[in-house]
């Protein structure tokens, strides 16, 4: 059996990120989507520190870290150099920063990069506080979160303000592609990075990345927290193209914010003090507001409910059963089509960050750490003919 773990990532293993770090996972996925022909810049912060302790580097792409607030400006310089030397067609530029480096101290540089129209994808890994320095509040720290500089106390419920709306600020700059996503949805992330890199001009992608250390949740919960925040409506997963909202990830089963807040120590004060319920209600109102504003629970405009039209599926028919936006999730294996819609291992048609529903997985299964017995309990819905 071939090795199940991909050891050839452009973001190599061996770095020193904490267990369950959402940012390291997101960075790996960004590079996987972008491929090797890029130059990446990085602001000071966790990602930089855990990946570049001389002489060890996790970066298998050309990468530069300069300072905290200048990742977008350094990227602008890289882009200008590539442009003048005629190399911009073959090499894409990716700027990276955490939420503090992007939304606060690096905000001016980011705005300049947007406004000048540089051909750069800027990725903000949003873990909602200054984690590298020890969990201090940033402009992207959410309402009521307790950080070390916005701590909950006898007179305070934690951070008094909401998140700065950076995606909207990017849209206001006329940035042609602006998107948000969460590391809980790696295929969405993958798709957005690829799409962004296919567009010329500035692009902004904000990725929700849990920080188990700073948010004080179990390290095993990284991706489930990253899904839950979307399912509550607190972190809308959006796409703006040329200023128009072109996609919003729909919520099929709305979760109350409580389910998302409770596993996180940064919100513990909301559940062990009198008056906490009112604070939770305020957060619920923020989520409900997002759901209403972006139509996160509206029926899809053209409700393309995929129907089983035949017992025999072609590849293109199978592709319609991708598990997204409420559609069923089917996979093919050795000529049989299985329904994985109800499986907890296949949320939103994704399995283990690597596999997608709507496809023939026969070859991928050869590399899987389990055999076909694992399909035994799933309902068979038809035959597959490529």
């Amino acid at each position, binding site marked *: 059996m071939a090795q199940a773990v991909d050891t050839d990532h452009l973001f190599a293993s061996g770095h020193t990120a904490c267990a369950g770090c959402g940012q390291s996972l997101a960075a790996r996925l960004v590079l996987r989507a972008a491929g090797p022909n890029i130059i990446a810049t990085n602001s000071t912060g966790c990602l930089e520190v855990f990946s570049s302790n001389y*002489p060890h580097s996790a970066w298998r792409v050309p990468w*530069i*870290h300069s300072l905290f607030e200048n990742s977008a400006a350094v990227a*602008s310089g*890289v882009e200008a150099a590539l442009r003048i030397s005629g190399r911009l067609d073959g*090499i894409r530029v990716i700027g990276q920063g955490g939420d503090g480096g992007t939304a606060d101290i690096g905000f001016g540089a980011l705005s300049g990069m947007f406004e000048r129209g540089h051909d750069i994808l800027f990725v903000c890994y949003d873990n909602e506080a200054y984690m590298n320095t020890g969990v201090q509040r940033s402009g992207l720290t959410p309402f009521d979160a307790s950080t070390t500089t916005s701590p909950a106390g006898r007179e305070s419920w934690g951070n008094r303000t909401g998140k700065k709306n950076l995606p909207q600020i990017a849209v206001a700059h006329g940035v042609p592609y602006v998107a948000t996503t969460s590391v809980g949805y790696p295929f969405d992330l993958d798709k957005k990075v690829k799409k962004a890199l296919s567009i010329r001009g500035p692009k902004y992608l904000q990725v929700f990345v849990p920080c188990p250390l700073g948010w004080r949740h179990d390290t095993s919960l990284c991706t489930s927290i990253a899904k839950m925040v979307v399912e509550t409506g607190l972190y809308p997963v959006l796409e703006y193209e040329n200023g128009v909202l072109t996609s919003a990830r729909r919520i099929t089963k709305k979760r109350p914010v409580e389910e998302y807040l409770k596993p996180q120590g940064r919100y513990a004060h909301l559940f062990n003090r009198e008056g906490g319920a009112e604070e939770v209600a305020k957060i619920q109102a923020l989520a409900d507001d997002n759901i209403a504003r972006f139509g996160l629970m509206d029926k899809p405009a053209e409700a393309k409910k995929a129907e089983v039209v035949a017992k025999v599926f072609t590849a293109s028919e199978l592709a319609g059963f991708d598990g997204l936006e409420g559609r069923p999730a089917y996979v093919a294996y050795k000529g049989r089509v299985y329904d994985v819609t109800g499986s907890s291992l296949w949320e939103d048609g994704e399995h283990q960050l690597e596999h997608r529903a709507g496809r023939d997985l026969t070859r991928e299964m050869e590399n899987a750490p389990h055999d076909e017995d694992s399909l035994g309990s799933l309902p068979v819905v038809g035959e597959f003919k490529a």
Partner: protein
Amino acid sequence: MARRMMEGSQAVASAVALCRPQVISAYPITPQTHIVQELGQKVADGDLVAEFVNVESEHSAASVVLGASATGVRVYTASSSQGIMLMAEVLFNISGMRLPVVLTCVNRALSAPLSIWNDQQDSISVRDSGFLQLYAENNQEAADLVYQAYRIAEDHRIALPVMVCMDGYILSHAWEGVDIPDQSTVDAFLPPFEPIYKLDPDQPLTFGMFMEPDKYLENRYMIQNAMERAVGVIQEVAHDFERAFGRASAGVMEEYQTADASTVFVVMGSLASTIKEVVDELRERGEKVGLLRLVSYRPFPQDLVCGALARAKSIIVIEKALSLGGPAPLVSELRSAFYGRPAQPGVTGFVAGLGGRDITVDTVKAALERARTGAGVDGFLDLRTDLELEGE
């Protein structure tokens, strides 16, 4: 080669353009603006093929040229005063990454109080940034140091950024006859930039890593060594410059009538021209006065300086910067350089011309007189006596 009347800023911009930088980034600040405006026009007219990146701050101007330099192209930026202060963080970073950025600092005072006029507190305040600092006396030199700055910075033995300093207004806005060479002369003197390392997907490298305590010190040590090597390289490049351009370059310093001088002034920048006038006048009266003009403040060529001053009895430093709460920067450095050497001339330091106050022939003569009567007693020159000053 054509000698034309032009503004100092225009001379510098012409020299920069002849060096064919591919990325220029700048943010406007008085009195630097004329240089970057001129370069912007050259790009707009197609006379210079470069990306001119108009940024939102000096911090980003320095960061853009940092990124472009790391990507392997020749770069240029310019600033003054508060702009240098805002760049300061990036300047240290540029030298730490050994990027051969060339920057013109059009020297201006620092706020508060706000002053747009000349002194040298801005560049002196980033003395320790790891940029070489070369100070021009006149507009010809402000231009000539640009060609040499690229040669020095891009020399693989050095690989450090260079700041060419010119006095704001006194030089930047003054019109003088300046020789601007033709392109082929500059091309022969300055070959295309060959980076040691660059950001390139064909050979992915990691720039700007962090270092733990067991390595950081050695990294700084290597930069210090490169700075020390730079004294010789500056001299070497000045020699090559003279052969290529048919015009002398001072190298790390210029000596004017020092051979038999018992009293020698030590200054940096345009003040040297005023002092040369005084020296000439006093020499006519038989007074053995001379001038040592320091071009290279970083690296500080202390062996050459001390050697040149060894025969002098009295040294008078006049500088346009302060170290508030301590002795002024240049005089303290000079005294330190003489410590433990056999020759021990008396050293007197004066601060003058801050915030654009004119330093006249009379100012220089007053310095001479004060050093005669009170050798070693530092102070300010031309302090007004008609104002009530705090604590007086």
